[in-house]
Each structure stands twice: as structure tokens, then as C-alpha cells.
């Protein structure tokens, strides 16, 4: 891998190369660990553990992919900042240190970020990471639910069933209420308060 110099342009190449190497390493490791077939009495548990492992691996790979895109944004922004400062110096303009340069940096960074963020690559990398994080959470909760059921503790799935039933009952109750004459409908007038309560 090429060592970057002080030229910000080199950093973009450096980050790209680092990212490619990292992705290649992870993709070599992942199939070996999660690909073996599950057998025997505990095959379901083995499969669950393999799924967890695969998702954790995917998560790390996707995090690296997004980090690399971010590094690229920062490198491009630095390059842009360098060019703008050089241009001003060439035109004989003063480049004040501190806040004006900081504000210029923010401008460069936001412009480069917007360029990257609107690309399909970025949107996909970000979404892939979020999607894998969500699937990982679902898998983790599934593991906790297995344990909870063994201990006869309430689970999320059980609560969801209760909430669904309550919702259906509420809808039925409302439909019945709607058939009542106005005078017999339950009042939903609120007590006078100035501000809503926060949980």
C-alpha cells in the first residue's frame, strides 16, 4: 500500500486502498466460520449462532465500507480546502487563520459530503449497515427470547400478541360506540391543562 505524503490528494488513494484490503480480508474469513452445516440435537441453536456470527461479520464489513466512504469525503474536502486557499493566495488575497479558515473548511466538507451522500453508493452503504444492524438486533432478541421462554419469562413476541389483541378490541369497541346515539357516547373531554405531560 502506498504511504501517503502530505498532499491531501494522496489520502484519498490511501483510504481507498485500505478499504479494499480490509473488505478482501473479511470476505475471506467469513464463509469458513459460518458455512458449516449444523447437525444433531442442537442444530437449531448452532444455526442461530451461525446466523449471529454471519451478521456480526457483515456488520463489521459494512461499517468499514461506510468508514472508507467517509474518509474519502474528508480527504476530498481537505484537497478542496487546499485548492481554495492556494487560489486565494495566488490572487493575492489574505487567508485569515482561525475562524474564516474553519468556516471555509466546513463549506468544503459539506459540499463534498453532499456530493457523496447523493450517490447511490453512499445511500446503499449506509442502508446496508442500518439493515444489517437491524437484522443483528432481531437475531440477538431471538436468542434472548429462547432463554426467556426456558425460564418462563414474558417475551417480546408474547407482548406483541397482547398488544395486537388490545388494538383489535379497541377497534371493535369504537365501532360499537359509533353506533350509539350521541347522548350515550362516552365523553372524551379533557381536563384543562396548559401543557402536555412528558413521560
Amino acid at each position: 500500500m502506498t504511504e501517503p505524503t502530505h498532499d491531501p490528494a494522496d489520502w484519498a488513494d490511501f483510504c481507498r486502498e485500505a478499504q479494499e484490503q480490509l473488505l478482501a480480508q473479511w470476505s475471506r474469513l467469513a464463509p469458513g466460520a459460518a458455512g458449516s452445516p449444523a447437525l444433531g440435537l442442537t442444530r437449531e441453536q448452532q444455526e442461530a449462532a451461525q446466523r449471529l456470527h454471519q451478521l456480526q461479520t457483515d456488520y463489521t464489513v459494512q461499517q468499514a465500507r461506510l468508514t472508507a466512504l467517509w474518509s474519502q469525503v474528508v480527504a476530498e474536502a481537505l484537497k478542496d480546502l487546499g485548492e481554495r486557499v492556494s487560489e486565494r493566495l495566488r490572487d493575492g488575497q489574505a487567508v485569515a487563520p482561525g475562524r474564516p479558515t474553519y468556516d471555509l473548511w466546513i463549506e468544503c466538507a459539506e459540499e463534498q459530503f453532499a456530493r457523496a451522500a447523493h450517490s447511490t453508493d453512499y445511500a446503499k452503504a449506509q442502508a446496508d449497515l442500518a439493515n444489517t444492524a437491524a437484522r443483528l438486533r432481531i437475531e440477538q432478541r431471538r436468542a434472548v427470547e429462547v432463554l426467556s421462554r426456558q425460564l418462563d419469562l414474558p417475551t417480546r413476541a408474547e407482548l406483541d400478541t397482547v398488544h395486537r389483541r388490545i388494538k383489535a378490541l379497541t377497534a371493535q369497541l369504537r365501532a360499537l360506540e359509533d353506533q350509539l346515539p350521541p347522548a350515550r357516547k362516552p365523553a372524551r373531554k379533557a381536563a384543562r391543562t396548559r401543557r402536555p405531560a412528558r413521560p
Partner: protein
Amino acid sequence: MNEPGPDLQAALREVLELNRKLAEGLPTLQAAGAVEVGCSDKDAVFRDDKVTLYRYRPIAPSAGVAPLLIAYALVNRPYMMDLQQDRSLIRRLLEQGIDIYLIDWGYPDGADRFLDLDDYINGFMHRCLQHVLDTHGIASTHLLGVCQGGTFSLCYAALHPARVRSLVTMVTPVDFQTPENLLSKWARHLDVDALVDSTGNVPGELLNAAFVSLMPFRLLQQKYVNLIDTLQEPRQVENFMRMEKWIFDSPDQAGAAFRQFVRWFFQENRLVNGSVELGGRRVDLRRITQPVLNIYGRHDHLVPPSASIPLARHVGTRDYTALEMDVGHIGMYVSGKSQKQLPEALATWLKKRDQAGKKRSQPCRPESARKST
């Protein structure tokens, strides 16, 4: 040791100056910690589960028009419309003699995860509006939808046109898939089922993170660096803290409603395709034939103008007005420009349409009066 060059000296002086401002301003920042939000007096007049309907107390003689019901977004809190005395669209409208009601959707918790868009629009919103109609003995009233609340209001007005005398949409996304809409580009690749299945309700913090990451350098860095310059001004610090509170005071989103909103609107752009279905009925924007005022911000980065402007092509009304304001999304509620121009323009528009609306809709007399005739 060599003397540092003039640039380095200037930079060091600036760092020292920044430090001084920070040290001297810290007490102001600490004093501003617990800011009050919401400045106008209001009464809770109707409650439905966690949803509260408020009616604002008048501060000026009535303009004699039907009430204006405000439906805010589910994300963030509606007090942005009435943040403080000099930054309150609601207060400015009250000064114009408008009778204002506001739907506060509340803070959903885990037991609300199965509330869907039908529950919000045909349920809560419908019952709040019905309460307004019953209270005033009228058949229709004015509806103002803000941001996502504007999208809800469009759906509502299309499904229940006779109840909406006129419709005002403010910073409202209609076409969710225009090239400038960054949030939509990001949302399109999201596995919303996995997200909602993993979180139940979608945490407000997650949405906050998404919103600030639209402009991460400005919203996570520069804004706080700029704050240091204002630390000597208690009023400005208080304004900043109020805004900060609003930005991060984000209710969790009921899972089922979030799932539908992302899929139907962001991913499938159903509102303009005419394929949103609520309570078994299709939302057809052409059924909106009452007057429509569409207000959007020229510099809105959350709901870009290109997302709002297409409304003109989709509604059935012949009385359509677009009002472009020279502000961003948040500036629409709190900027000086907006405070000066918007309430008067809105009140004037409402007053004109109220008369026409009265003629169109039959007055709805109370039940007892109807029986006696």
C-alpha cells in the same frame, strides 16, 4: 527560539479569545439550561388515548372565520409553532383573530407500536376534527398540515372532503422522489421491515441522527462553534437552547405507522401515484376540490421545494395558491421573515376562503335542533 510568524500569532490570539468567550459565557449557558417552550395559553379540550387536542385562548377580537385545526408531524413536537413570544406562528395568527386548535400526537410508547396510518388519519385526526365541528356546530373547518402532518392532511382532505373547508399545507412533501430529496434517497434502500421488527417503535434518537447527518459538519460542529460567539448574550443563548430542545425532543414513532410511511411514501411514492389506501379507501388527491394554499421554503433541505411544488398538478381544486418563502425548513416556523409575512398572508387567505366555504357547505346544526324541526 524563533518568534512565530504573523499568521500563527493571529491564530493563537483567536484560540485565546475563543477560550475567554467560552469561560465567560459558561454561566450564561448554565443559566439557560432549563428553557420554557410554548408561550401561548391553551386548553386541552379533547383527549383520545395519548393524543390531545388543544384550543388556544384568543388574544384579539375574532376574525369571524371557522377555526383552523393544525396537524403537526409525528416527528418532533408541535410547540415549534409557538416556541416563544417573538417566534410563534400561532401567536401571530391569534393576533389576526384566528381561532386555533392544535393536535398534539403525544409520545407513543411500546404499547402503541401497532398504531398505523389509518389509526392516525381516519382515527385520531378524524375524531379531533369532529370535535371541532361539533363544538362550533359547523360542517367543515380549515385544516393546516405541517410537514408530515401536511401529508396526513392531504390524505384526510381527500378521504373526507366535505369536512375540510380549506386546506393549507406547510413544508409538506408530496412527491417524495425528486432528485434533491436526500432523505428519500437514503430511505429507498432501507429494509424498513427489519428496522421496525428490530425496534418496535422507531426511536426518536435514530431519526435525530438521520436528520443531523444530512448536513453533519454544520449541524454537529459549526453550529456549536458559532454558539461560543453568542455566549455573552443571554437572550440569544436562550433562543439557541429552545431550538436545541425542540430538535432533540423527538417522540418515538409508532412502528406500524413508520413502516407504512417509509414504504408507501418514500419508497413507493404512492401519494402522487394515487395508490395510498387507508381504511379500505383509496386516497385520490383529485378529490381535494376545496381551496388549497401550499407554503414551502426555498432553502428547505428536509422537504425541498421540488417535493412540495408538484401538489398543484395532483389536487382537483381550481383555487390553488403556492406561497414560496425565502426560508429553510425551520426558518418557516421561527425566522423573522416568516413571522412578518406568513401569518398575515395566511389569515387574509383564510378569511377570503371562509366566505366561499360557508356557501359551499351546509351548516350542521346540533342534533337536538335538527330533531325539533
